[in-house]
């Protein structure tokens, strides 16, 4: 792996738009070119060089040492290569991401993976609200790829999500999978209140739910082959990031029966 390394000089004085900093976008540039890229969001015209020291050369990896909740749009539209941020980032990280790998060493603000279409995101901290949800103006939420969050995830994860997988080692907050249209939300700890509100299709997997909505029907215990496929596929694609294999039998709830009823909430214990 080779590529540029950006080191944070000091906490930024304004919110920064880092969507232009991906391995593909920096291909063919020199360190001097990178330093001139505008990342500010005010009239101050802040550049990369104002906030970071730039070292290395163009390659398939970009490493940002440091972090701030003002680092917005980190890895947005990332299409290939690896982008590493060693500490926390702000809103809409991995928004509309298409491929490659994004690793974030700390917490993430709201909108992680909004309208994402491919690639793998690994967050070592926790994530805010609306993970895998909509970008303003978009019709659908997440449409592909995988997000793994080691900590907790905020409210309304997977809003209008169609495809892809969101995995949390911690809890999902309230209203996970609202208006879900497909894809998988998988936690090894549990869902908060009322997951699957107005869910049309898709899969919610957890050992427990703090409060179910009344419009999910209890279907009893099931041995589902698709869960074997999901476990193996996840293990193959994520390696050590993968959660433990799912149990042979799960309890299935169908919903949201108030609208369509083809989604499923699977309890693993």
């Amino acid at each position: 792996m080779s590529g540029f390394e950006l080191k944070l000089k000091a906490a930024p004085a304004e919110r920064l738009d880092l969507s232009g900093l991906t391995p593909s976008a920096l291909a063919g540039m020199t360190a001097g070119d990178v330093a001139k890229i505008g990342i500010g969001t005010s009239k101050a015209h802040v550049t990369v060089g104002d906030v970071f020291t730039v070292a290395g050369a163009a390659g398939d990896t970009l490493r940002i040492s440091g972090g701030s909740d003002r680092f917005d749009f980190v890895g947005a539209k990332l299409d290939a290569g690896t982008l590493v941020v060693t500490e926390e980032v702000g809103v809409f990280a991995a928004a509309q991401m298409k491929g490659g790998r994004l690793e974030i060493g700390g917490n993430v603000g709201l909108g992680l993976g909004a309208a994402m279409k491919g690639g793998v995101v690994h967050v070592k901290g926790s994530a805010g609200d609306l993970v895998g949800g909509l970008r303003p103006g978009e019709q659908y939420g997440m449409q592909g790829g995988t997000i793994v969050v080691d900590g907790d995830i905020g409210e309304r994860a997977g809003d209008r999500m169609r495809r892809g997988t969101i995995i949390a080692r911690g809890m999902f907050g309230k209203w996970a999978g609202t208006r879900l249209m497909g894809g998988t939300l998988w936690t090894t700890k549990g869902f908060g209140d009322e997951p699957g509100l107005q869910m049309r299709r898709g899969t919610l997997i957890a050992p427990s739910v703090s409060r179910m909505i009344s419009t999910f029907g209890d279907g009893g215990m099931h041995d589902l082959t698709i869960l074997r496929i999901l476990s193996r596929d996840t293990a193959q694609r994520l390696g050590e990031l993968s959660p433990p294999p799912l149990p042979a039998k799960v309890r299935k709830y169908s919903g949201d029966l108030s609208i369509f009823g083809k989604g499923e909430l699977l309890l693993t214990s």
Partner: protein
Amino acid sequence: MAKEAANINGVSIDDTFAEAFGMTGTAIIITADSAKWAMQSAVTMTGFGTSVIGCGAECGIDRELSPDETPDGRPGVRCLIFSFSPDMVAGQLKNRVGQCVLTSPGSACYNGLEAKDKIKLSTGFRYFGDGWQTAKKLGARRFWRVPVMDGEFIAEDTVGVTTEAVGGGNLLVLGKDRVGLLEVCEDAVAAMAKIDDVITPFPGGIVRSGSKVGSKYKGVIASTNDAFCPTLRGAVKSELSPDTLAVLEIVIDGLTSKSVADAMRAGITSITGGGAAKGVTRITAGNYGGNLGQHHYHLKDLLP
């Protein structure tokens, strides 16, 4: 009769070639809760799949798969299906999987061939779900889930297809003892089965009714290969020496030309290994003069 190219352990090998044809092929993986039921489903699905002319497809079992080799971690069987075109293969898949795999307890069905070109696997039978079928896309693969009485039938959305497949590789094995000849051919089929990407689609891999093109009867496109029928020796221009009592043929289809050649070599090695002691006298091959099939497998190039 063709000239002799070699004599190995008392078995004469003709200086001739097998003439084979380009075909379209695909592979699917069938899994089930046990190896027994995966095989049961595979045997049923590949049944009535001996000749593309009469059956619409030539089908067979390539090999059994361990749980580590299947998408769902259960025992599996890899089946190959050959026909004239991708559309014909797709039609055969729709009917065979719909009637024989969907119906088999605990079964699931997946792509078994990584290829650039794809055909639909799930078209048709997923609608058996009557609106309750759902799809789960994992990475680049989409799996259909059809509710059935023992849970869910899982089938992948598409399978790979190749137009580089070969159908009609063959060996004709001649002998002076029918029982011994059959045993030798059984061993040869078992040796060929160890080669990946090939099948021997006839019953037990062995054909006793080899055919020639055409017939004296109008509308009959193939008829008995009279030159290799022992009972017609003396009545027709026979290819058989006076001591030949029976002839059996092994037909080979493969996803690649190399796999067909490798299987034929494995078959010749097996037959010449101990065939003479069981009455095998000669190995030859079927061809049409070399003008019909694109693939020619010369026996002298496939000697052990």
